[in-house]
């Protein structure tokens, strides 16, 4: 049977939700793992909420379409927590962006990580735009779904040209959050 | 003996299927004569419409293809991307261009396509047997308006040259007719200018040729010419709408 890890990342458009998923996907690919990334698209995109699912596995991934039993759930805003909390499997990992989410999860059969992305990004990196990378770092360090070490290679591929100067701050952001 | 007039090499030696008194033959010959004189018969690619002139490729001695109804300007746009230096033209009637194909002609002009369109306006559907066209004049009878076009019921005829000339991408727009030897010479001049505009890549060139359809108008060839002059020209004035300085 496959060891696929099913990850859902959800939030407002503009919070870097799709980007967090893509970074995880690049990392998995560079670690020679199988990966699929699937966005929500269409009217939802325009209505201000966005989500994507990422499957990472050591063997070929059958269905890219996942709607429940996620191993990891990342919620960047309140509505996403309300909508998707039930879809996390028992024992799964829930990451909450507490800078934005002001409601509490209701389940007790899961691991909960509270990440104040915006405050960490502003106080430690001095750049609010790295909030999504603070969350990405938290996910990687807590779940080990990909290694932190691979991220420099990912950033070198993704941030090219003028964006290359963003790499040090983003690498720093990955390790900025303390539990 | 020196010949003073010859069959143009641009026309294949085949008998035309057009009705007696129809002016498609004159328009065909003028376009082919111009291409022959420019030495471009070997490079030209033409697009024929759906309508009486669908088989124009049987007569014109150049590479040609048939377009779905109304889509000739889109087809020509595609050809021009593959052969940007070839003289490319569409030959379209009023049902094809002014009814089913209005979107295509408008957008070819909008994109300032570097090909020519020759628009044969005879104010009726010929091939299908005389139905009303968007260009049918007020009061003119057709098989789908047997009492004559009534503005209260069918609205008013479209003036395509006027519409096209409003579009910045259309740089050369002229309406001509072929009812007298003098008109024929002027029409040929307009066709030449259209190919000049294309060769210089100045933009979209559009020549409307007012034409007769004696069969579906129910007139003799000579009466048809008279009817065109008395009825069509007042509504569709023969004139040059725009012309770039370069030609």
């Amino acid at each position, binding site marked *: 049977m496959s060891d696929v890890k099913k990850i859902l990342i959800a939030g407002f458009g503009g919070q870097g939700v799709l980007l967090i998923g893509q970074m995880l996907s690049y990392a998995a690919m560079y670690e020679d793992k199988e990966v699929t990334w699937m966005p929500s698209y269409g009217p939802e995109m325009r209505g201000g909420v966005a989500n994507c699912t990422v499957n990472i596995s050591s063997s070929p991934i059958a*269905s890219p379409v996942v709607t429940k039993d996620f191993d990891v759930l990342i919620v960047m805003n309140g509505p996403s927590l309300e909508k998707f909390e039930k879809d996390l499997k028992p024992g799964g990992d829930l990451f909450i962006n507490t800078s934005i989410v002001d409601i509490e999860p209701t389940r007790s059969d899961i691991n909960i990580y509270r990440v104040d992305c915006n405050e960490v990004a502003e106080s430690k990196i001095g750049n609010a735009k790295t909030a999504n990378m603070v969350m990405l770092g938290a996910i990687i360090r807590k779940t080990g779904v990909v290694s932190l070490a691979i991220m420099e290679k990912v950033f070198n591929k993704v941030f090219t040209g003028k964006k290359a100067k963003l790499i040090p701050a983003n690498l720093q952001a990955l390790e900025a959050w303390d539990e | 003996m020196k010949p003073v007039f010859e069959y143009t090499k641009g026309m294949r030696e085949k008998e035309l299927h057009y009705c007696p008194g129809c002016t498609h033959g004159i328009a065909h010959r003028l376009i082919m004569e111009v291409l022959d004189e420019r030495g471009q018969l070997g*490079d030209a690619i033409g697009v024929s419409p759906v309508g009486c002139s669908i088989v124009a490729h049987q007569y014109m001695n150049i590479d040609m293809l048939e377009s779905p109804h109304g889509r000739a300007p*889109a087809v020509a746009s595609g050809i021009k991307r*593959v052969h940007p230096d070839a003289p490319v033209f569409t030959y379209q009637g009023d049902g094809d261009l002014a009814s089913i194909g209005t*979107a295509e002609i408008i957008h070819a002009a909008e994109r300032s396509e570097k090909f020519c369109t020759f628009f044969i306006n005879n104010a009726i559907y010929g091939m299908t047997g005389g139905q009303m066209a968007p260009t049918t004049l007020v009061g003119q009878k057709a098989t789908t308006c047997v009492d004559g076009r009534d503005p209260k019921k069918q609205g008013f005829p479209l003036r395509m040259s006027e519409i096209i000339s409003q579009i910045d991408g259309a740089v050369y727009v002229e309406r001509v007719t072929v009812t007298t030897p003098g008109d024929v010479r002027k029409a040929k001049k307009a066709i030449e200018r259209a190919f000049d505009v294309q060769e210089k890549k100045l933009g979209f060139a559009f020549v409307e040729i007012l034409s007769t359809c004696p069969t579906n108008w129910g007139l003799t060839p000579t009466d048809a010419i008279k009817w065109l002059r008395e009825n069509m020209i007042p509504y569709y004035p023969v004139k040059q709408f725009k012309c770039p300085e370069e030609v």
Partner: protein
Amino acid sequence: MSEKQLLKGNEAFAKAAINAGCRYYFGYPITPQNEVPEYMSRELANAGGAFIQAGSELEAVNMAYGAAASGGRVLLSSSSPGIALMQESISLLSSVEVPIVLINVMRGGPGIGSIQASQADYEQVTKGGGNGDYHTIVFAPSSIQEACDMIYHAFDVADEYRNPVIVCADGTIGQMMEPVALPEAKEAAMGDEAIAAVKPWALTGHKNKRERHAMNSVWLQQDLLENYIDEYWPKYEKAERELQDWEEVMLDDAEVVFVAYGSTSRVAKEAIQALRAEGIKVGMIRPKTLWPFPAKAFEKLGDNVKHVISVELSKGGQLMHDVKYVLGGKYPVSLINRYGGMLLDPDEVVARTKEILEVK
């Protein structure tokens, strides 16, 4: 093959086409395939080709006709309602034997429908959405890698058969990202002489050296049209002999055989693993060509098979009808489906399979 890149399906389709020597693309915005025209608008000119954003799908398909008839390697893409709009010209392209490749990133229908993945265009693409006696050759990829490989191959098949080829993807494959290794970049024949050398039938201008080409679709004498159809029809018989393609999944001991294509076949594959874990022996035939339909795959099914189930995203079971036709009543055939843009998930396929088999 290049090194693996993480690519969105639609963007990968465009890259694979350019690598196959495609230099002309004409398109009109429609979700969920917009990344194809967006990519082509940025990249085709750099490859020496041309892109036009058409005023409609009608314009796009006819621009494609003009470019392909004059010898260009042409890609079109759209989604279901846009493909419907193009059908008149797909029929015409078949009648004048002009090759193009068309990607349908299918969404829910009928009408304007939904923008999520669907497979309800099966009959439209395989049974000839346009008028008259013709077929389109149809490939159905189940991953981005396979889509790229099929698109790359489709240009050669289109040229060989001088016929439109449709690559039938869906919103899931168009919108998802997967690692993909792109096929090697090929050069395209550009310019009159090079085109005339590889496509002697193309409109390039006769250069006063050959008889003019007249590409005609109208036949005012019906007996001549009948003769003409007889002339080109053998290529469809050849396609049925040579192009059928499919994947077999655990058929050796299968008592239940799923038939599924495209992204749905991946859901079915996951369901097979789950059902086998419960002792239910399920296998699958995955058509990789929808036309010609892989009838040969079904000839091999033996006495171990008790039930065949079409797993697809269409209400009426459009794929199921072809399955029933080739089986000729040999096994009971059932349907597991969602539609309108709703997707199947593996659990639902497992549960409905058990219902059909009356297994608790």
